[in-house]
């Protein structure tokens, strides 16, 4: 049986006046039913553009998918005409965005925004859609759901807005859910609630989930597998336990080192990764991480490392890791 989501060698390029930038470069990503794959990396490493590429929601111009396949239950979305994508979005793939407050239309009621998905993809009429919207709000744990139907987004808190966005995303029971930093804009306590909600919904419906985040704490809590991205490329892939136990790529190790650990000695300073993600139009010739890498070798500056499989289910693109 085909996987719910199987991305193969996906490449997205930004065509700008300053030149072409490979924002997503040969990304492969497969997610099974009920599985959560976290897409991790710093800002600007291509996580969100990967998600938007899967949804075919890229701002065009400047961004365009230039290669690869996005197989949704075996069907390639990259070659699908736009009308075909309309049936996919919201129905087979649900998406949750980073800032819940700005993700909702400020001049439409909660009910209207949820009912809209239902009425687009199902046969439900206005009245039935309202009933279903009420059920969905209760499903996502909206307090006082009945009264919130007629509320406007500005009358809700950030956490409540995110519940509305989640309700919209799962309204048509999609097989794939893409969550693009769904908790970044929320308070820590609300973050935990929203994560627990997403996990529960996913377990109940057996959805495949792509979870985009830069927060490794969230990764440890939600993901089964982790894909680490750097400058548009996948640099490491592993199960969540393996990744935290033995990170192979120096970048992954750096990310983990930069995450505070509760109970660690106070005097110990958090490690950081020196420098910044290079601009996509000025990537170095060899490994994109080489200028910031503590284990850099002469070869890293000449040649771009390919993904290798040091152990079953693990992938890494690093010469230093290959040598061990």
């Amino acid at each position, binding site marked *: 049986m085909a996987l719910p989501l199987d991305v193969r060698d996906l490449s997205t390029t930004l065509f700008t006046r300053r030149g072409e930038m490979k924002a997503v470069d040969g990304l492969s990503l497969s997610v099974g039913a009920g599985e959560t794959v976290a897409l991790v990396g710093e800002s600007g490493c291509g996580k969100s553009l990967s998600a938007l590429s899967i949804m075919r929601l890229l701002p065009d111009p400047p961004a365009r998918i230039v290669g690869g396949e996005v197989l949704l239950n075996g069907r390639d979305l990259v070659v699908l005409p736009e009308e075909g994508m309309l049936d996919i979005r919201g129905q087979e793939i649900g998406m949750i965005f980073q800032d819940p407050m700005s993700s909702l239309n400020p001049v439409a009621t909660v009910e209207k925004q949820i009912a809209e998905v239902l009425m687009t993809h199902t046969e439900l009429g206005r009245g039935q859609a309202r009933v279903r919207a009420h059920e969905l709000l209760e499903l996502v744990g909206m307090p006082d759901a009945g009264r919130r139907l007629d*509320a406007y987004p500005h009358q809700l808190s950030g956490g409540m807005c995110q519940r509305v966005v989640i309700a919209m995303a799962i309204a048509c029971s999609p097989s794939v859910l893409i969550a693009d930093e769904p908790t970044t804009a929320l308070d820590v306590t609300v973050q935990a609630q929203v994560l627990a909600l997403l996990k529960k919904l996913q377990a109940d419906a057996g959805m495949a989930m792509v979870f985009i985040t830069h927060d490794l704490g969230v990764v440890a809590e939600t993901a089964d597998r982790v894909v680490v991205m750097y400058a548009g490329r996948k640099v490491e892939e592993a199960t969540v336990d393996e990744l935290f136990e033995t990170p192979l790529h120096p970048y992954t190790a750096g990310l983990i080192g930069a995450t505070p650990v509760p109970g660690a000695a106070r005097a110990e300073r958090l490690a950081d990764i020196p420098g910044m993600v290079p601009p996509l139009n000025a990537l170095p010739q060899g490994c994109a991480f080489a200028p910031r890498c503590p284990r850099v070798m002469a070869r890293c500056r000449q040649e771009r490392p390919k993904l290798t499989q040091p152990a079953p289910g693990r992938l890494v693109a690093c010469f230093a890791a290959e040598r061990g």
Partner: protein
Amino acid sequence: MAGELASPAASRRPTGGGSSRRIAALRLLRRRLIQAVPLMLGVVVINFCLIQMAPGSFLELMTAENQVSDPATIELLRKTYGLDDPVWLQLVKYIWALVQFDFGFSYRQNRPVIDAISDHLPATLLLMVSSITLALAVGVAAGVVASMKVRTFWDSLVSVAAMFFFAAPGFWLGIMLIVLFSVKLGWLPVGGMMTIGGVGGGATGAGGVLDVLHHLILPTLALGLFYAAIYTRVMRSSMLEVAQLDFVRTARAKGLSRNQVTIGHVLRNALLPVVTILGVQMGTVLAGSVVIESVFSWPGVGSLLFDSVSSRNYPVVLGIMVLGSLVVIAANIAVDLVYMWLDPRIEIR
């Protein structure tokens, strides 16, 4: 206008629903009506003083025209029209009369000012309403088209047309429209509000309505296209700006088509700036109609104002100023209510 409109984030009450918004609208209405009182008073005082500063009085013209030179008669007239009182007392008396809806007496028409004006006001209101309707319909539609076809031939066409109608003076545009549609093509009447001695000349019945509409087309175009040009520009940029916002991406992620997203989500948010400038421009629409009325011999207050100024018929001039201000204030209140209806984030402090 946005004076007492609270900032969007000011209230985060978990209430929704129509009834609370209706109450808020009524509170806004009450507040604006109360505010209108000192505003009107200011309008009356300033206009009264302006007219006092104008040289001469209608009495001079009146006596000259009727060749009255007897000082006793002039003195009697002066008393009759209350011109022997000190200026401040005249003002107080005028305000007191206004409160009772008495706008004074027009010696020229030999009837109360209010009667003279109410003969002409409906024509002006009709022209204003039709022009604003045209401007909104054309401006919003053209702005939406331009934004959806941004940086294409259609976008450029709309921009050039908007630039043209923005730059063209109303009186010139009016004359050109007359030359084209009335003189060359003979499709539309040159001026006036109805055909003299025509079919339905009594302005009643369907024939009369059609006749008036027929006469209304050119003045509406001449007055409305300027505002249509402004709304087109504002709407285009507003649509493009709103289209960049996050909730539009959310709407697309729901599987809505481009048209559904544009009409259902972008349009209503993009309308807000158009409504804002609409309120600001109400006064200039009224002022613009004065010019257009004289081009098309439209029997509105514009022509009455022009006649009255040239005959120093100051009670009528003052009356038109006061009633015009009332129209503008009422229109602004209406715009505020529309704005509130469009944007639920607006609540009164």
